[in-house]
């Protein structure tokens, strides 16, 4: 059983569309992070959210941490082909900063 479940698993959309990726857990996390991974590379950190209800924006990407700190979402506005990749949420629910990753969402944005 995965600690962090992401949905959807796969998403194929056209350039210009909006999308939301979800990261859910039954556990409380002290923080949640979002990473993007491209083929042949390691994941790259996008953002860290720490406070329940927190919203962070990174250009066309909006990240939200749930009020209860059990879930998070990533919203992309006007997706571009450069957004294509594997999106991973990650967090620690142990208090020892043990970073575990979610199941991942594979996004394909076509021109």
């Amino acid at each position: 059983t995965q600690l962090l479940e992401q949905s959807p698993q796969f998403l194929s959309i056209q350039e210009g569309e909006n999308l939301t990726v979800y990261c859910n857990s039954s556990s409380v996390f002290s923080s949640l992070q979002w990473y993007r991974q491209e083929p042949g590379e390691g994941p790259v950190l996008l953002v860290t959210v720490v406070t329940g209800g927190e919203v962070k924006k990174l250009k066309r990407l909006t990240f939200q941490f749930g009020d209860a700190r059990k879930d998070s979402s990533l919203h992309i506005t006007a997706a571009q082909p450069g957004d294509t990749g594997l999106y991973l949420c990650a967090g620690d629910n142990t208090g020892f900063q043990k970073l575990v990753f979610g199941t991942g969402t594979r996004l394909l944005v076509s021109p």
Partner: protein
Amino acid sequence: DARVTQTPRHKVTEMGQEVTMRCQPILGHNTVFWYRQTMMQGLELLAYFRNRAPLDDSGMPKDRFSAEMPDATLATLKIQPSEPRDSAVYFCASGLQGGSYTEAFFGQGTRLTVV
């Protein structure tokens, strides 16, 4: 340009052979993570170290895997003996524990194929 360096990038070995993967964390980082990534299981945490001390290696098959940090500039992951099911991409990541969270910076991974 600080980055995590992993060697080798690719490794093909025969079943039963020993495999050693190396990682040079970013200078000044006090936390090192080892992950394994497969299509089926995703990114699994194998072990992690803080200030060179192992904190958790519960994700590793103990009978064949071992992880060490001989010094602050080198982390190693060994598999002995290797099996075909160990085929995966192994990632090392380093970070600096600060406050309530650690942000991880990943290497490019070692793609291991055991035949």
